[in-house]
């Protein structure tokens, strides 16, 4: 064994392999395609009304936007961004589950954007506001699925706005957007 700087190793880790009781209970063989198809059908045919949920998250997002607009120089940057990021994440998570895939796609872009900016400056917040306005229009217009060519154009417009921001504000980006 190679010693590091002739020092005894301080930290030790114990590896434990628990008994796989779960496997012992369920056995083998997986689930049939028929069952998986039925489960998927159930998911796709759910009749949950996404609008009230979306309104709740959009209201929360708007509060985050207002907070960011009013934030002073001493405000916690991470906290300010999180107030917009979390409702964005909820919109992304739930839209697609309840037939609004376009909302998920847009909110996903919003999250990616918020994850890489260092600071919610005025220009950055304007872009978040554009996301809010567009997502709200999609929800109120009951544009389900990916919204077709029009929906994809809206998505592209939001993405382009983000890219223009990154191009213009290279100093306000923590990491490169993927």
């Amino acid at each position, binding site marked *: *064994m190679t010693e590091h700087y002739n020092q005894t*190793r301080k*930290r*030790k*880790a*114990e*590896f*434990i*392999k*628990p008994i*796989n*009781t*779960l*496997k012992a*209970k*369920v*056995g*083998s*063989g*997986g*689930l*049939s395609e028929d*069952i*998986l198809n*039925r*489960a*998927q059908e*159930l*998911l796709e045919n*759910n009749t*949950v009304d996404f609008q009230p*949920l979306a309104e709740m998250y959009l209201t929360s997002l708007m509060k985050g936007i207002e907070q960011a607009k009013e934030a002073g120089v001493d405000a916690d940057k991470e906290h300010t961004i999180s107030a917009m990021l*979390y409702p964005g*994440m*909820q*919109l*992304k*998570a*739930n*839209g*697609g*589950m*309840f037939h609004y*895939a376009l909302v*998920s796609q847009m*909110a996903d872009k919003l*999250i*990616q954007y918020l*994850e890489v900016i260092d600071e919610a400056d005025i220009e950055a917040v304007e872009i978040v506001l554009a996301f809010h306005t567009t997502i709200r229009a999609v929800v109120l217009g009951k544009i389900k699925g990916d919204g077709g060519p029009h929906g994809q154009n809206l998505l592209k417009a939001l993405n382009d706005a983000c890219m223009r921001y990154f191009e213009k504000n290279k100093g306000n980006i923590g990491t490169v957007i993927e």
Partner: protein
Amino acid sequence: MAYEFYKIKILIVEDNKPMLDLTKSILQTFGVAEVITAKDGEEGFREYCLHNPDIVIADWMMKPMDGISLTRRMRNDPRSPNQYTPVILMTGFSEKRRVLEARDAGVTEFLVKPFNARDLYRRIAQVIERPRQFVRSEDFFGPDRRRISKSGQKPYDGPNRRGDDKRIAPEVTEIDFAEREAE
């Protein structure tokens, strides 16, 4: 032969009622007979202690206790009935740093929302067929961040980086939690 899901209990912890109901319905379609539900981490931990489920599926963002805190509690609280219970964390986040944060809290699998029925099934099958060994160190207790190798793959035969460690599972490869997520 097929999985006999009627023999297991699954706890879903989710504050979004429509999402909770939908996930429960999918699990019931899979054949899970007993699906227990809770609306946040606090209630989730109580139900967990009461029912000792075989799998926990938890949302990340919940108040007053989120899915990450629930996982830490399940792994470390002396009242926990089983510190090794697999936890599947559901979230809209998919960025690597978020996945790593969940992994470091002791989460077993990560399920990105929105998901389909097969995504959920794959995560459940994963915890059944490829369970993680656990690691106990001074500052961490939870599933190993590396994976036991799939059968047929070359087992790890490199140097033992921790010569003093007590290794119970011999076959370990450097398959990272986040990398596996991307498979």
